């Protein structure tokens, strides 16, 4: 069966510091991968999606970036965090139309 992992589970970072969140999927090949952000009281916002290694589509211009160095690995990064980057970050995968989500990373920028 397929499993999706995210780490870290929680993170507290100062403004201006770098960020790296990692997501890995097990049990499937060539999945589509997604990064979402969920802000308090708001719905999920799609940040990036990838249909293959090195292929990244950005949905929202911001100071975040994503990379897919391996088939089942998706990384969300920032060089300098802003206060507005705080939120709950979710990684998801799909091979057909249904998306399956990871446990999430709670990021607090102080």
């Amino acid at each position: 069966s397929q499993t999706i992992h995210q780490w870290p589970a929680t993170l507290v970072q100062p403004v201006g510091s770098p960020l790296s969140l990692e997501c890995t999927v097990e049990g499937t090949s060539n999945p589509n991968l997604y990064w979402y952000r969920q802000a308090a009281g708001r719905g999920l916002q799609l940040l990036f999606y990838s249909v293959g290694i090195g292929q990244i589509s950005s949905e929202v211009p911001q100071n975040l970036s994503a990379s897919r160095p391996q088939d089942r690995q998706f990384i969300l990064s920032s060089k300098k965090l802003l206060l507005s980057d705080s939120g709950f970050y979710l990684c998801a995968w799909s091979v057909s139309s249904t998306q399956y989500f990871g446990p999430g990373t709670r990021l607090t920028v102080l």
Partner: protein
Amino acid sequence: SQELEQSPQSLIVQEGKNLTINCTSSKTLYGLYWYKQKYGEGLIFLMMLQKGGEEKSHEKITAKLDEKKQQSSLHITASQPSHAGIYLCGAAATSGTYKYIFGTGTRLKVLA
């Protein structure tokens, strides 16, 4: 752009009561997905509806997609404390796209 509106935003029911959550789209839906989220956790996939008039059930949860494919309802029968959480509907932004849009969620609390 397409939006998904959920109602109600929050719901408190007594254990054993039935309840319904609605999800309305501003455009035709190309696949409607229901998820459940516990606070601070990821989304758990419940079910997917694609055809107009389709209805699916999972345990005590039933979801329907109307004939015009612009509204879906999620119905819980004989609610239990384990049903508590946030229910979100999601949909493909356009046919064949990888991009989903989501409603803002319905927070359900079930009183024992």
